[in-house]
């Protein structure tokens, strides 16, 4: 208990850090993932190939290595002096985008064939079919896997703490370096993560309920 009371400001900053890096990289992952999923189902072979390469590369690379890439290689390509928060969010977002892409793609394949055929027979183009007919229906089936992907993202955000981003893992290491017993520190960090992950799964349950339709 002392650990929390004595270092509440740091704990609060860590909590806010975890929440904000999760939020920012979720948005990056969602946007990128949907775009790449669009590439992977598109009628243009080079784009399909690019999508497949993207997913294969990112899914088989440890996230920690990706963090190294974003902290040591990307600043050299773009421009130096990006903040650790931005770099960590990008690394997390890119990594998770490959999982989002696969979830969206499998969601697309659950939409009945007739839907896209009907859209095409109305004269809709590929992007119209995808945007207006298929993706809205795929969204409903994609929500449950997306929820677990974002929970995984929250947990993965702990790695950012080792790359000097203020978040909960950083608080854990800081406290244990200051000589506090690890058990209470672990307990408070655990509770904080449980709060965040429960909030995410609650949010998704709410979304599922509002988007529910009789089929």
């Amino acid at each position, binding site marked *: 208990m002392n650990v929390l009371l004595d270092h509440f400001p740091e704990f609060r900053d860590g909590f806010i850090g975890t929440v904000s890096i999760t939020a920012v990289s979720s948005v990056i992952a969602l946007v990128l993932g949907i775009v790449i999923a669009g590439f992977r189902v598109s009628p243009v072979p080079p784009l399909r190939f690019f999508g497949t390469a993207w997913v294969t590369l990112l899914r088989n690379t440890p996230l920690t290595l990706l963090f190294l*890439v974003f902290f040591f290689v990307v600043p050299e*390509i773009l421009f130096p002096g990006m903040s650790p928060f931005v770099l960590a969010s990008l690394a997390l977002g890119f990594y998770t985008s490959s999982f989002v892409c696969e979830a969206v793609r499998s969601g697309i394949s659950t939409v009945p064939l007739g839907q896209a055929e009907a859209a095409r027979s109305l004269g809709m183009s590929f992007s119209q079919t995808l945007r207006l007919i298929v993706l809205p229906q795929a969204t409903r089936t994609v929500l449950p896997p997306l929820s677990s992907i974002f929970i995984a993202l929250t947990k993965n955000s702990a790695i950012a703490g080792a790359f000097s981003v203020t978040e909960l893992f950083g608080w854990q290491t800081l406290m244990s370096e200051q000589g506090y017993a690890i058990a209470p520190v672990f307990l408070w960090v655990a509770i904080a993560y449980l709060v965040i992950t429960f909030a995410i799964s609650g949010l998704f349950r709410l979304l599922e309920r509002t988007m529910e339709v009789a089929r």
Partner: protein
Amino acid sequence: MSASVLFDAPGPKARVRNRIYAVVGTLLILGLLAVSVVRLNDKGHLAPEMWDIFNYSGIRQNIADALLATLKAFGLAAVGSLVLGVVLAVARLSDHKPVRWVATGFIEVFRSLPLLITIYAVWVAFLTDYSMWALALGLSIYNGCVQAEVLRAGVNAVPRGQREAAYALGMSKTQVMTTVLLPQAIRAMLPTIISQLVVTLKDTSLGYMILYPELLYSAQLIASNTLVNGQYPYVSVIVVFGVIYIALCLALSALATWIEKRGRRARTGSAKGPADTPDSTKN
């Protein structure tokens, strides 16, 4: 390309349009790659000297040692997580309420915590001087919980008749679990179990945080200790180690796909048996 739901076999106009998209897309992607390569080259990251470091026997030895260390931690974690997974799955399916509760609580807590937090806590609390065991234990706890859920799903997916038949033969609860349910569950879930092992393999890189000298740790060490042309060779080191990781993971995934294909063939082969029973009962 008629396999896709989303588009027909393209007509002449669509073919022209697709070709334009293809060319533009390829150019864009190649352009991005070219810009990256040029910018990296400008800063001297692609100079031959940067790649020469891998010709030194010391660095090669480092990489080999690190690979061995990664595989060691992975092997321990794989065995540990599978054993723990079986134990937890069986405990969750137990008839005794307290056992079930303890197992469920354990799984829920450690599954929803970041692996890094668990590994770090294990390291600081028990195994500060044994980072390999801390890493292996942390990985085993987390992945054991995941594997337990996979196995539980597998056991629940075994047809009810199997269990009933086994009980009807007079088998004990333990016998039913170990000789009838678990083997079928493990076989059905093998592809998922191996995919989780791929995740475990990737997660050994968290050993970096607790100073276990595995691949990523030595990558960082090599890159930050070798000064070439006044620069640290992060780019070349990351490329080399990235290739090693991707190769390891792809090999494991290929194993999963192969087993899945074999399993599918086996299942269709054995399906003949049950398929003719309804006919025989009709007569």
